[in-house]
């Protein structure tokens, strides 16, 4: 293997990212889900920092710091508080049972790897082989959003998808311009707070965070 050690570490972190995506898919409890999300953010921040260091792209340091502050500290803290206030740490209900979820997940991974192969050959970055993993994380997070019924896991799925996209940007083009990244980070942050307020309203109206109730348009 001819890769340098820091790139091997980036590859390892990419693998851990995928591992955490699968762990999130199989996690039954919301608190566990939030912890996993924080770990995914940590892996993402570390890999971004290593890419920044090994390629000399200084703006990636800011992205790494932003990821660390938002996705490892702020958002998990916010979610933990939310879960405590809403008292919703029970088993997460899934549409499909967990093994089926995992099987669909592995099909998605194979699909993503194949899809990314020609794209990554076109990319000129040293980290291009991790593009498949980034794509797979996006699809897995998407699957999680589809398969979960409750509101908080769906939002965490959305944020995990953002993690995957961010990783894809880092591995394909060494990240987006800083302005774009700042904008996305702000959007995500605001989005999470808005959704947090939504949770309270949803629960007040329906006495539950199960979004299936929202499919009925009729007034009770």
């Amino acid at each position, binding site marked *: *293997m001819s*890769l340098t050690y820091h790139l*091997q570490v980036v590859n390892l972190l990419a*693998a851990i990212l995928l*591992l955490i995506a699968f762990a999130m898919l199989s996690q039954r409890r919301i608190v566990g889900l939030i912890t996993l999300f924080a770990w995914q953010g940590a892996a993402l921040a570390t890999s971004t920092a290593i890419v920044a260091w090994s390629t000399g792209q200084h703006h990636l340091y800011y992205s790494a710091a932003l990821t660390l502050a938002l996705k490892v500290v702020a958002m998990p803290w916010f979610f933990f508080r939310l879960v405590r206030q809403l008292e919703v740490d029970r088993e997460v209900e899934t549409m499909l049972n967990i093994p089926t979820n*995992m099987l669909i*997940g592995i099909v998605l991974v194979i699909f993503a790897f194949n899809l990314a192969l020609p794209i990554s050959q076109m990319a000129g970055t040293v980290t291009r*082989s991790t593009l498949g993993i980034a794509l797979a994380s996006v699809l897995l997070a998407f699957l999680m959003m589809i398969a979960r019924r409750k509101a908080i896991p769906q939002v965490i799925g959305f944020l995990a998808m953002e993690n995957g996209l961010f990783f894809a940007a880092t591995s394909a083009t060494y990240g987006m311009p800083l302005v774009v990244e700042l904008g996305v980070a702000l959007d995500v942050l605001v989005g999470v707070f808005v959704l947090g307020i939504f949770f309270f309203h949803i629960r007040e109206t329906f006495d539950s965070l199960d979004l299936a109730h929202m499919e009925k348009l009729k007034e009770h």
Partner: protein
Amino acid sequence: MTAGIVLQVAQTLLALLLAPLLIGWVNICRAWLQGRSAPPLLQPYYSLRKLFHKDATLAHEASPLFRFAPYMIFACMVLAAAIVPSLVNDLPFSPAADVIALVGLFALARVFQALAAMDIGTAFGSLGARREMLIAFLAEPALLMVFFTASLISQSTELPHIVERLAHQEFAIYPSLAFAAVAFWMVSTAENARVPVDNPTTHLELTMIHEAMILEYSARHLALIEWAVALKLYTYSVLGIALFLPWGIAAAGDYTSLPLALAALVVKLLLGGAALALLETINAKMRLFRAPEFLGTAFLLGVLGMLTHFLLEP
């Protein structure tokens, strides 16, 4: 060649001696973590001695198979322990079985265990045997996937080649092995009847898996089975070391680094035993019907390991 045979015998004897000590060490760590006073390190030896001095009691209906099974299980485990490189790589026994045959060897011991459990015809024996088979048929493919991931890296299913490739050639980080390591941990808890799949210290017959199968054994038969259980845990630990932390195992024919290899092995077993005790303390035993899901996850992680190998390690 003679040096190789001597070392092979020494490594096998070391496995026989260290296996009960490993169980004793895990029990001590568990006791510490759970705030109980710890049993002595040599407690498994005391139990074995006590059991060997007792007279065996057999059920009236016991067939010769029931009496033969403990010897067979013990022999399988000794052979497995002899095959896995723990101190020196590429000893004379190693070519006897590659990783696939090794899985077969474990399966052979399991078949005898299950047959012997059903032989007496008690309810708990059959119940344990059925549960063991349910767990085993899910654990085996996952274990094979873990081995295949390592085999893809080293282009060989022979353990000496795998260790040689991972330990003695240019150091590289293999992301696929991260998946394989998690899968291996999950499989080995199932195969060694540890928490979260089974509880080795349980007294409740209805929740037993492995213990239910050996309820009818006594004295020397029970001692052999207990020793085989210890050997199995040791073999799995050494397998994990050989696949994921192989640094320290002496290269083939390199006899000067033997003391270092021994020290490395002991340190790794101490750390591994403590880690096992920690994982057993923070996890609760799961319901039996969660076990297929748990092992299905292990299998998927093994497959993912192979996929990431193709993606990231060209």
